[in-house]
């Protein structure tokens, strides 16, 4: 019996529950100094002067560093972006967002750092700030005059003029996928120690130790042989810790400069402006079709707010484009995007990274179209689904979906939600004119996982005592990979899960690694380990045959006890420790996975909301979710991933938004002001099992990390719109706060003037 598919409890938990994890701030580093960054308080300004003289005299101050001291080239953007849009390590001439680092102060302890930071005087000459990405396109305010434009990159439309020809109905709408803060509970943190022999050890709260190592090599100019990066326990990442930032990459440089170990741990208030933000798209959607519900054409035009320095966020529309069709077979589709810089925190990946934006657009578009032709949202979806016998399916933009059954996902979720009964109750409330109205929202989605990151490395070694050591290039921060990866090795090699040691997040221990990003860990990292274990199994078979003086073809592996014997004589069996001792070079195999490509999880969500028509207050009452991520290794872990994703999806739909005033000052700079979703705002989720294996890998596994967010956001938004549909409302902006919803109700209820 295979252990795969079972609810194996997490091996990680006892530590987290008793002594707590070991996050960067918990590391006992002897003699470590503390780094504190002084940050810009202005969204856009010229720096006329930075006076650090008083700060230098403050108690405990060891060093004060300004941009002039940093002998490193600014952090260059992607090659396809104007290279003048580079990010200085510490601002010297211009600041472009509130929170941009200007000075680094090194002190003996953390409180001294904050004291000294207060003594730094920065002389700003304010410049006009541009916050709205659509305004930024006009270029009245240009962030990088040398670039001559705010446009960082773009994907032009094909420019079809006859896209909507033959459509009886065309609906057009601008919608906003607002900027949100990823908010891992642990912010960014890094520590660095140089040893006497010139080797660096850096601990980084990162989703990829190897990625961080490569950044130190490429941007700080360190020799890869001298660098060891360790990602210790990491308190969440959600995409925002995929790439590095000036603040953490500078930590080893500072340690070398001061000749002592240093540590940097950002505060939440710093994190809210320093850690990258997610989403941030203005979307123009156009959808056309026939009155009987067939969608014939769809155009999505995106303006991506990249923030002040173009990072991963500037490339998010590439992912949006890949998933522009959604789950529908639409004859004519067009996509265009422009990424622009604004005076905001740089935009980065956040749970879904470009795909939630694609799903939000098409799923809102389908509802708008359904409302226009007076057809039910479930019916319009069914009418246009890619049929289940069409896979592999190539979309309008050339994305190849591996497997799917969207009809079945929708059927399952509607049945579980008791959709018909919900519609009846809605009708009754409307007839009665209840103060609290009911809204039912649908979303059927498909997303791409393991996009753009094909390889992953994994190694399996049999230890002398017969236990198994696995090394993996994935880098968990909450996903439970110690448990899931050891399940894969245990199943293949016939050992107990507890007899598998999983090593990760350490560039000295793990040869190569891409990391835990893009919902890729099991389908890439897991598959690499699975294959390496298979190679070890083959090696062991030969060694066992030698020991038992038999033909390897006659050897039988007993996966229950992890033993090899000759067919017919199970009593004379060799164990893993026997074989490890007998194998000349030991039993070990490493797999550097190549190819395989991405996979396409899909699902269907139903959200049920109540809306108080007098106050605009929305309560999410139910969230019913079918999330199909192919073969599931550990349902407990998979459901955990879905739950977290659902909550973040609800958060964007109803509560969370990074807000700025007109001068570019962020007004959501701590967790008292930012509407981080809490337990009190959520119901328990109803998750429904569905598994459509992928042919792309031997585990049949797709990614599960981001699906919940991708499906939940539009489902909840559509539910809020649906609750108000009887007033003629077709759209409610996110987040659907009481104020926003109340305004929509008032506008819809006002008698027409004019």
């Amino acid at each position, binding site marked *: 019996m295979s252990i795969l598919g079972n609810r194996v409890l997490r091996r990680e*938990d006892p530590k987290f*529950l*008793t002594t707590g994890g070991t996050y960067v701030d918990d590391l006992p580093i002897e003699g470590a100094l503390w780094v504190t960054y002084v940050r810009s308080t202005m969204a856009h300004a010229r720096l006329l002067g930075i006076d650090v003289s008083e700060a230098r005299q403050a108690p405990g101050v060891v060093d004060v560093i300004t941009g002039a001291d940093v002998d490193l080239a600014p952090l260059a953007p992607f090659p396809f972006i104007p290279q003048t849009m580079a990010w200085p390590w510490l601002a010297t001439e211009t600041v472009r967002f509130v929170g941009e680092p200007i000075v680094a102060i090194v002190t003996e302890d953390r409180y001294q750092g904050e004291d000294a930071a207060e003594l730094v005087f920065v002389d700003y000459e304010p410049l006009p700030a541009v916050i709205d990405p659509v305004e930024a396109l006009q270029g009245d305010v240009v962030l990088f005059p040398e670039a001559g434009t705010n446009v960082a990159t773009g994907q032009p439309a094909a420019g079809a003029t006859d896209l909507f020809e033959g459509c009886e109905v065309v609906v057009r709408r601008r919608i906003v996928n607002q900027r949100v803060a990823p908010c891992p509970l*642990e912010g960014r943190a890094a520590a660095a120690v140089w040893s006497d022999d010139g080797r660096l050890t850096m601990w980084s709260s990162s989703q990829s130790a190897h990625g961080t190592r490569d950044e130190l090599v490429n941007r700080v100019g360190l020799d890869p042989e001298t660098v060891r990066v360790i990602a210790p326990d990491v308190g969440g990442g959600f995409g925002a810790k995929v790439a590095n930032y000036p603040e953490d990459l500078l930590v080893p440089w500072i340690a070398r400069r001061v000749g002592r170990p240093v540590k940097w741990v950002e505060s939440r208030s710093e994190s809210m402006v320093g850690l990258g933000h997610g989403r941030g798209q203005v979307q123009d959607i156009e959808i056309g079709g026939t009155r009987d519900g067939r969608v014939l054409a769809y155009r999505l035009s995106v303006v991506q707010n990249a923030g002040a320095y173009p990072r991963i966020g500037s490339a998010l529309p590439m992912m949006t484009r890949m998933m522009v069709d959604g789950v529908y077979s639409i004859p004519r589709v067009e996509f265009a995007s422009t990424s622009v810089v604004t005076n905001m925190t740089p935009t980065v990946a956040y749970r879904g990274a470009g795909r939630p934006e694609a799903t939000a657009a098409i799923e809102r578009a389908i509802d708008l179209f359904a409302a226009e032709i007076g057809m039910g949202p479930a019916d319009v979806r069914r009418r246009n689904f890619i049929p289940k016998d069409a896979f592999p399916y190539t979309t309008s933009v050339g994305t190849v979906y591996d497997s799917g059954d969207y009809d079945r996902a929708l059927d399952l979720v509607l049945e579980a939600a008791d959709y018909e009964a919900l519609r009846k109750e809605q009708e009754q409330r409307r007839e009665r004119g209840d103060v609290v109205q009911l809204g039912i929202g649908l979303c059927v989605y498909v997303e791409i996982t393991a996009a753009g990151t094909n390889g992953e490395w994994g190694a399996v070694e049999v230890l002398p005592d017969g236990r198994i050591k696995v090394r993996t290039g994935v880098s968990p921060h909450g*996903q439970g990979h110690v448990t899931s990866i050891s399940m894969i090795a245990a199943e293949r090699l016939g050992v107990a899960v507890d007899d598998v040691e999983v090593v990760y997040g350490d560039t000295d221990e793990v040869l190569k690694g891409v990391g835990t990003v893009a919902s890729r860990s099991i389908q890439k990292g897991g598959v690499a380990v699975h294959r390496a274990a298979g190679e070890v199994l083959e090696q062991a078979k030969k060694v066992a045959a030698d020991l038992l003086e038999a033909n390897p073809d006659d050897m039988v592996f007993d996966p229950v006890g992890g033993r090899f014997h000759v067919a017919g004589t199970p009593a004379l069996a060799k164990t893993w420790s026997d074989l490890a001792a007998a194998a000349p070079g030991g039993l070990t195999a490493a797999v550097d996975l190549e190819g395989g490509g991405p996979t396409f999880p899909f699902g269907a969500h139903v959200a049920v909301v109540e809306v108080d028509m007098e106050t605009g207050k929305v309560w999410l009452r139910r969230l019913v979710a079918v999330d199909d991520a192919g073969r599931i290794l550990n349902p407990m872990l998979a459901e*955990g991933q879905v739950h977290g994703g659902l*909550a973040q999806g609800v958060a964007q739909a109803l509560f969370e938004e990074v807000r700025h005033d007109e001068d570019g000052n962020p007004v959501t700079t701590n967790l008292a002001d930012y509407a981080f979703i*809490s337990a009190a705002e959520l119901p*328990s*989720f109803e998750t429904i099992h569905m598994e459509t294996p992928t042919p792309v890998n031997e585990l049949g596994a797709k990614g599960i990390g981001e699906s919940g967010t991708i499906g939940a956001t539009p489902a909840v938004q559509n539910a809020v719109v649906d609750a108000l549909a009887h007033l003629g409302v077709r759209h409610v902006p996110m987040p659907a706060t009481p104020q926003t919803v109340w305004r929509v109700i008032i506008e819809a209820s006002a008698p027409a003037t004019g």
Partner: protein
Amino acid sequence: MHVSPTVNGTTQAHDVEPRLLLVHYLRDVVGLTATNVGCDTSSCGACTVLLDGESVKSCTVLAVQADGAEIVTVEALARDDELHPVQQAFRENHGLQCGYCTPGMVMAALSLLREHPDPTEEEVREGLEGNLCRCTGYHNIVKAVLAAAGMPGATGVRA
């Protein structure tokens, strides 16, 4: 200033700055690092500990205010290899992922169960409103607290 709280059953004695936060005292002076800092506005609850039997956010208390008090952190709950019922319930119900909010969440759950030994789901959700988690969507945390409510010893602390 001199402070002498009892932390997990052991009497401490230290001279500290008057402004030192209790959470930094516990982490940096006493050396108990399970209790985490997740914000700077007393919003997230990652630093929740028991102070004289009541749950407090230890970033909102000065170390000097805890002079003479009895403090219990998550480190005191398990005995040898045996998890406390609340810890056990979190494990069995997958109530933690990255683990950062977990020590504070467990202490808040323990305090909640002392006030509501048999809480409804709504009481659990409202009771944990001040403890933020970004990973679990709270689903399994709520499940864990409801499961712990039925376990013997769930409200006890042996420190």
